[in-house]
């Protein structure tokens, strides 16, 4: 209910601002809605959204799985931590744009280059979060699993993974927002479709309604994914915690 109210407030502010600024710079909500409907009925909206979502999904899964594995390793094995740390610092501080441009130069303007570049941008934050999570693992529970001779996989699944779940959730959430942002840049620079590509076109034509139509639809999709996927996962991962007041 409060969320709806907050959304209505956003619309109201936008509408009022559009009345003052007016015209081409800030179109009113109905004008943007018209563009959305037009783009949707031609199918272009879904094509571009779909392309972007596919890239997000692929690079996100890639970065999360590889990043979590590396982070877990670095948290567990001191040698891996020592060896990996300089790389991690380098990757963490490398601007996204550099990675994307280099990937396109080295691997061509290909899908693989785009996805790899996005994944590489997200990777180090996943590593850092999971490394912290692994360092915070409760040793006494590990000992318990050892004493009761739990097989490795069972111990990992029931003893280790639940402790890492909040870190995975945090990393997924911040990672998803990072990937959303970077994917558009990658598309703008080197893909012939996707929301980023459309926004690039709209920028060249100074077509604000089109720009807003795509970016708002995209934002709506992100919001749905956040509430439908990320939040339920978080709630499930922490369901054993006594409820906070």
């Amino acid at each position, binding site marked *: 209910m409060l969320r709806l109210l907050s959304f209505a407030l956003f619309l109201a502010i936008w509408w009022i601002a559009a009345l003052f600024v007016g015209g081409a710079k800030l179109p009113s909500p109905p004008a943007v809605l018209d563009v959305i409907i037009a783009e949707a009925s031609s199918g272009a909206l879904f094509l571009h959204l779909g392309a972007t979502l596919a890239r997000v999904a692929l690079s996100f899964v890639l970065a999360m799985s590889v990043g979590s594995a590396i982070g877990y390793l670095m948290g567990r094995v001191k040698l891996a931590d020592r060896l990996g740390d300089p790389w991690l610092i380098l990757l963490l501080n490398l601007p996204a744009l550099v990675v994307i441009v280099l990937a396109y130069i080295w691997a061509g303007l290909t899908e693989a280059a785009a996805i790899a570049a996005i994944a590489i941008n997200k990777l180090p934050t996943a590593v850092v979060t999971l490394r912290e999570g692994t360092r915070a693992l409760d040793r006494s529970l590990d000992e318990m699993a050892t*004493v009761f001779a739990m097989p490795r996989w069972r111990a990992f699944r029931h003893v280790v993974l639940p402790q890492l779940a909040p870190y995975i959730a945090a990393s997924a959430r911040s990672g998803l927002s990072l990937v959303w942002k970077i994917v558009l840049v990658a598309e703008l620079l080197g893909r012939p479709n996707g929301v980023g590509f459309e926004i690039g076109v709209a920028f060249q034509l100074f077509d604000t309604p089109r720009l807003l139509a795509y970016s708002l639809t995209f934002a709506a999709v992100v919001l749905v994914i956040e509430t439908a996927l990320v939040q339920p996962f978080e709630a499930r991962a922490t369901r054993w915690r006594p409820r906070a007041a």
Partner: protein
Amino acid sequence: MRLEVEITGKTYRSAAGETHEVLAPLKFALQSGEIGVLIGPSGCGKSTMLRIILGLDRDFAGHVARPPKARIGMVFQEPRLLPWRSVEQNVRLAAPDASDAKLAELFRILELDAHRSHYPGELSLGLARRVALARAFAVEPDLLVLDEPLASLDDALARRLRDEIATLVASRSVMTLLVTHSLDDAIRLGDRLFFLSPRPARIVQEVPISIPRAERSEAELAGIRVGLASPPLESK
């Protein structure tokens, strides 16, 4: 089955870089069906000794002969339950082979029936300790290790749990090692008492109790207690 412990020394290096001797040379053995009790002042190195016996700490001088493939049931000082698994899941994860009937029996004896689906965060310490006991017994251990399982419980509950431990141990042949600093628990449960010195721990006195556990009357217990009056002990 037989557990033989022969530790010739254990030191550890503190964060400040000093070397501390935790265990002095000590040696004892335990047979199937016996309850050995380690009694000693707080901080004398009992928990370190247990970690060595359980194979959690391999950095020591000496030798521990555990029967190969001996199943171990352990009650740690803190319950060490998985907070994200229910009571029943906690027990089942440690003892996947335990039958439903066996679990039902354990939950009944330890009065945990009503708490099967609760999470450890919802339990009191006394209940959580009982779950830890249920978990240790559910694996049908060959070696049962109890590290102060009755500490910080009120007397009535401690007495009941002690009786339950006696019942459960009597129902199967198992080597049991109990760490306590309650002399009362020691003489009621133990077959063989090992009195430990302050740090570095060594065995000051080994006292076998020959009367079978079930037949120890209050008068006989008092007699044992008088016989033990000499060693220095912390009161409970």
